[in-house]
């Protein structure tokens, strides 16, 4: 499984790089060799062209797309219910439970556009470094000796790949031609790419996929940049012996790539 995951990530990275490299168009003078090559068949390029054509066809209703780079600060806390753990292991509650929001960060790409020319949306793809505070729901004791322990030690630092789709509703606030305020709502999906500790795998507790429900607000300053604040409520995508609720606040900014490069 570990090897399969590694291959999957590498495959994904290579695919993403291929798409980006393939989309670059350089205006330059062709050498003799390149001129000769232009007449030959290139199966790789042909495939990329077909994918682009197919994407354009599939997403014909998604218009006015602007690509942006974003960065954000995340404040995260997780609620942990370890009732499904049967392994005879104890962790001192006082040393694990801090019940606070801890700061992490995110970065990635974001595509803002319009669906059927009237519904604004945003898609984003990014990487999160999540540092999370823990709130353990269950406290155990083993009288007369061991007080206040849990059966599970949740990972509190991990990295995820994130895909988000948000519907944006323009709010009638201020001069809407200059400053735009949006309310946003939508799902997002996180996949842990950092390794899971062995403590987190006991009794099938380990879970790599998190599905989130997001809502928040965004402020678009004349198209120069977007400030956003989102709340994300996440749960394990698959059933687990240790259900975890991940609460996150995300505050950040996105800037259009054409303004940056």
């Amino acid at each position, binding site marked *: *499984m*570990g090897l*399969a*995951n590694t291959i*999957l990530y590498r495959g994904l990275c290579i695919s993403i790089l291929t798409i980006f490299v393939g989309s670059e168009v350089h205006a330059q003078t062709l050498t003799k060799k390149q001129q000769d090559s232009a007449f030959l068949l290139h199966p790789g390029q042909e495939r990329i062209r077909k*994918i682009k054509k*197919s*994407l354009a*066809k*599939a997403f014909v209703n998604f218009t006015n797309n602007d690509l942006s780079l974003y960065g954000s600060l995340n404040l995260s806390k997780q609620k942990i219910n370890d009732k499904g753990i*049967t*392994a*005879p*292991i*104890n*962790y*001192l509650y006082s040393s694990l439970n801090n019940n606070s929001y801890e700061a992490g960060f995110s970065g990635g790409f974001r595509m803002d556009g319009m669906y059927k020319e009237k519904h604004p949306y945003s898609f984003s793809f990014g990487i999160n470094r999540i540092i999370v505070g823990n709130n353990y729901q269950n406290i155990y004791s*083993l009288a*007369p*000796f*061991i007080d206040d*322990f849990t059966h599970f030690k949740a990972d509190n630092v991990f990295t995820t790949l994130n895909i988000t789709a948000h519907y944006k509703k323009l709010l009638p606030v201020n001069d809407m031609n200059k400053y735009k305020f949006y309310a946003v709502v939508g799902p997002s*999906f996180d*996949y842990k790419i950092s390794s*899971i500790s*062995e*403590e987190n*795998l*006991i*009794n*099938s*507790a*380990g*879970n*790599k*996929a998190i599905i989130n429900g997001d809502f928040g607000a965004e402020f678009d300053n004349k198209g120069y940049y977007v400030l956003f604040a989102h709340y994300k409520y996440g749960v394990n*995508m*698959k059933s*687990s012996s240790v259900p975890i609720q991940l609460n996150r606040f995300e505050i950040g900014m996105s800037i259009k790539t054409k303004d940056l490069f």
Partner: protein
Amino acid sequence: MKILYTLLIALSSFTFFSCSKETSTTQVNVMNSLLTNKNWYLDYSITEAMTSTTPVVFKSYVGQSTYFITYLKNGDTKDSDGITGTYTVELINGESQIHMQLKTSNGNPFEVIYNIISVGESNMVLSKVTTGPATKLYFTTK
């Protein structure tokens, strides 16, 4: 439409790979990591009653708190009484156990099996597997 199917397959693959990766040795590995390379000091032992009318016997180790046992990473064990041997942590029918092959200071071999009631960074409770009333042993790392 084809591209949407491709995206669906990609998402299904992600979901498939999101399954946990627990193996048969995961729990044993974690318990071993908590157990090894520490001196476990015996604080209390409690022997359960033979019958419900007989009171529970509390045997305090006040005055004998120097008794300790160490489980080394290489599978050896030794205690403060000079008894040495080897040990393995095993998971048998859902029961976590420590199997110890020991030798007295005279060289006589004997086997002791403990059920692990709970093991942590600094606390451990074991139950000696015997035919008579069970004895629970409470250890700390001090």
